[in-house]
């Protein structure tokens, strides 16, 4: 077990420090200093994370859970308190490493990418805040802490996506991202409240150790219905998953992710690889035993994941914006991870292959996806457009980028021996072992699609004749700061599978999970071959269409004479439009109108009526003051009679 905790503090303190210092002072003074400080800070964080990791995995203690530190934050009752701490187990250590490494490299990359931007200082500061929040989320020892950093992740992504706040598209994209995730988070919070009310604890240990049997007896009133506490837990688990649903941009809350491409590319890469979207998967993986006992919530998770996987892959095949293609590929990969977690449930039994596979895929995916985005970024930086139409023929101009992107593409395509192969293979296996044959088929199919669209992107970008002026005139070159991280990342993209497999098989042992009726099933040896075969076929198709000597690339690219189906897919099934129409206009707008109507007409109306009525009475009184003496004298007499009858005088 690690004996000095102080190093682990560094992991969190450094990014926070960078955020504070850059945000308050350095950012305004000089961008260079800010950048240097950011890189240094994140570097230290990375190193200390690696040290912690090495300590942990080399110690005999692994893979037990441990809590390095746990500060009391807010107590709600005896032993029902929210704490801020660092939880150490294989999963969190892995994530710590991934996050710190990725954010370190992205910081380096940003030196090149943000060069000359007016507010680079602000960028570096928020970027560190981003990684800090993610680290806090990863290290969470309890739901409350997780939610705190969950929100911080959301807000820093908002700030980064909308970094160029003078671009309306960027602003609206950031708003959409924040609000959609916030929408999901509100359910997350509700889930936390319900679960914590039932269990009287936020602690992951407690939650993961639960058995529903204890809660069958008492009932709880959820307002609309009265259910047993066990059912309340199941509802709560689904609500909690909803948080992950939105954060990981699962269908139908996926639309913010592609739009988030409006932000600077380093941001996209860090969002997609390490910091934001995997948070959802991480949440489910972290609470896996809890979900496992909570009825069929895992099955729901599986289907959500599977559908998103195929859905995104299909869209990705038709897109032209290079970053959007990558975005949809991320969606599809996240779908893999999600359903892998979900697929662990077979009837009442739970197989944990999926859990291992999913975490493994988080690990491998992080590297190559980050690399791919950085590559896209440098391409865009050179060609000044996101559009594949304008690229092509970059192989000669950017050799390093070319080769490293080849590695990454092969990795994501799941061709052995690249990293993607191992993790994806595990996932498909999990689906098979869980007897979810439909999902299994979809997974195989999607791996084919993945290979197709990734190679489509690859060929269109690098092969063929140059289609843009800047490439032809040959201004294109490789920036050192931007290429270095790509090359560095290519290495884990290549190897992390091979090396990682061992670690994951050993440490991420399902047996360690405290899951009831855990069954272990033998491998199905033939699955990898099938997967690879499909991938290879897809590769050939892609080559045939976009790279082969007699490929009509122009014809493949032009939009006219497309089938209606293609158009629908190309427009992402018109989801943005539907979202806009339904949610913005109908739901929010509608309720808002009604509310405003109630306020302005009903309430104010009643008020106005009261005032009017009082004034009318006043006029009555003043009308009596006509100045007519006879009438005045009359009032004396009337008064006497009036009080004689109304005065309740006993006679």
């Amino acid at each position, binding site marked *: 077990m690690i004996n000095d905790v102080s190093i682990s503090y560094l992991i969190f303190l450094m990014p926070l420090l960078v955020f504070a210092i850059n945000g308050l002072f350095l950012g305004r003074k000089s961008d260079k200093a800010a950048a240097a400080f950011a890189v240094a800070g994140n570097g230290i964080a990375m190193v200390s994370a690696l040290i912690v990791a090495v300590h942990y995995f080399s110690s005999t203690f692994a893979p037990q859970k441990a809590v390095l530190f746990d500060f009391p934050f807010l107590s709600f009752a005896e032993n029902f308190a929210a704490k801020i701490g660092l939880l150490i187990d294989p999963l969190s250590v892995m994530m710590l490493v991934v996050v710190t490494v990725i954010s370190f490299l992205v910081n380096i990359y940003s030196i090149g990418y943000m060069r000359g931007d007016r507010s680079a200082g602000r960028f570096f500061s928020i970027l560190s805040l981003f990684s800090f929040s993610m680290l806090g989320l990863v290290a969470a020892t309890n739901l409350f802490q997780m939610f705190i950093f969950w929100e911080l992740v959301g807000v820093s992504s908002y700030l980064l996506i909308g970094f160029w706040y003078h671009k309306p598209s960027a602003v609206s994209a950031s708003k959409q991202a924040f609000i959609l995730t916030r929408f999901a988070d509100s359910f997350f919070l509700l889930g936390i409240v319900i679960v914590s009310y039932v269990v009287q604890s936020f602690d992951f240990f407690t939650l993961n150790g639960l058995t529903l049997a204890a809660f069958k007896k008492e009932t709880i009133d959820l307002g609309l219905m009265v259910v047993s506490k066990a059912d309340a837990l199941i509802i709560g688990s689904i609500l909690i998953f909803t948080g992950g649903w939105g954060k990981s941009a699962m269908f139908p809350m996926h639309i913010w992710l592609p739009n988030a491409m409006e932000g600077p590319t380093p941001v996209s890469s860090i969002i997609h690889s390490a910091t934001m979207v995997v948070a959802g998967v991480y949440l489910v993986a972290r609470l896996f035993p809890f979900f496992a006992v909570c009825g069929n919530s895992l099955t729901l998770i599986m289907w959500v994941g599977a559908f998103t996987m195929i859905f995104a892959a299909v869209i990705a095949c038709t897109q032209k914006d290079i970053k959007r293609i990558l975005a949809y590929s991320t969606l599809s990969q996240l779908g893999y991870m999600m359903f892998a977690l979900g697929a662990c449930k077979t009837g009442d039994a739970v197989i944990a292959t999926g859990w291992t596979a999913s975490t493994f895929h988080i690990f491998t995916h992080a590297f190559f996806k980050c690399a791919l985005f950085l590559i896209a970024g440098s391409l865009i930086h050179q060609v000044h457009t996101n559009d594949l139409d304008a690229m092509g023929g970059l192989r000669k101009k950017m050799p390093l980028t070319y080769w490293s992107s080849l590695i990454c593409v092969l990795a994501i395509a799941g061709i052995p021996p690249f990293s993607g192969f191992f993790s994806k293979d595990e996932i498909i296996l999990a689906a098979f072992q869980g007897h979810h044959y439909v999902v299994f088929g979809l997974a195989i199919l999607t791996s084919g699609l993945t290979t197709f669209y990734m190679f489509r992107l690859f060929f269109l970008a690098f092969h063929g004749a140059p289609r843009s002026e800047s490439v032809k005139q040959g201004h294109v070159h490789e920036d050192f700061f931007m290429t270095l991280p790509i090359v560095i990342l290519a290495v884990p993209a290549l190897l992390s599978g091979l090396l990682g497999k061992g670690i994951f098989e050993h440490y991420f042992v399902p047996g360690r999970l405290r899951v009831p009726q855990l069954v272990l099933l033998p491998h199905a040896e033939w699955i990898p071959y099938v997967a690879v075969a499909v991938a290879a076929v897809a590769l050939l198709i892609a080559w045939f269409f976009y790279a082969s000597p007699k490929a009509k690339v122009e014809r493949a690219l032009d939009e006219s004479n497309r089938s209606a189906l293609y158009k629908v897919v190309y427009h992402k099934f018109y989801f943005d439009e539907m979202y806009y129409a339904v949610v913005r206009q109908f739901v929010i707008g509608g309720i808002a109108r009604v509310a405003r109507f109630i306020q302005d007409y009903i309430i104010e109306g009643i008020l106005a009526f009261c005032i009017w009525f009082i004034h009318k009475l006043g006029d009555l009184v003043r009308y009596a003051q*006509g*100045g007519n003496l006879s009438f005045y*004298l*009359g009032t004396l*007499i009337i008064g006497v009679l009036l009080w004689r009858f109304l005065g309740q005088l006993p006679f």
Partner: protein
Amino acid sequence: MTLMNCLILAFLLFGIGVWGLMRRRHLIGMLISIELMLNAANINFISFAYFSASDSTAGALFSIFVIAVTACEMAIALAIIVSMYRRYKSLDVEQLRDLHD
């Protein structure tokens, strides 16, 4: 001639005064009506003093005082009415409409 008769007489007198007050448009007429009402009260005093009251001097005394007081009240009233007549050149109450809401 009993107490009740006197009371009824007084009450009628009072009523006549009120009625006159309502009907009259002429200030002097109104003053006279008021006089009637005051005298109705006087009759009450006298008759109570005569028939029932344990301390009968008080009633008589009272009525005398009332007459005195009424006298000066009327004096002032007439003074005011005179000053008013200077303005309006008439004594019709209908003209007193300048002060109103």
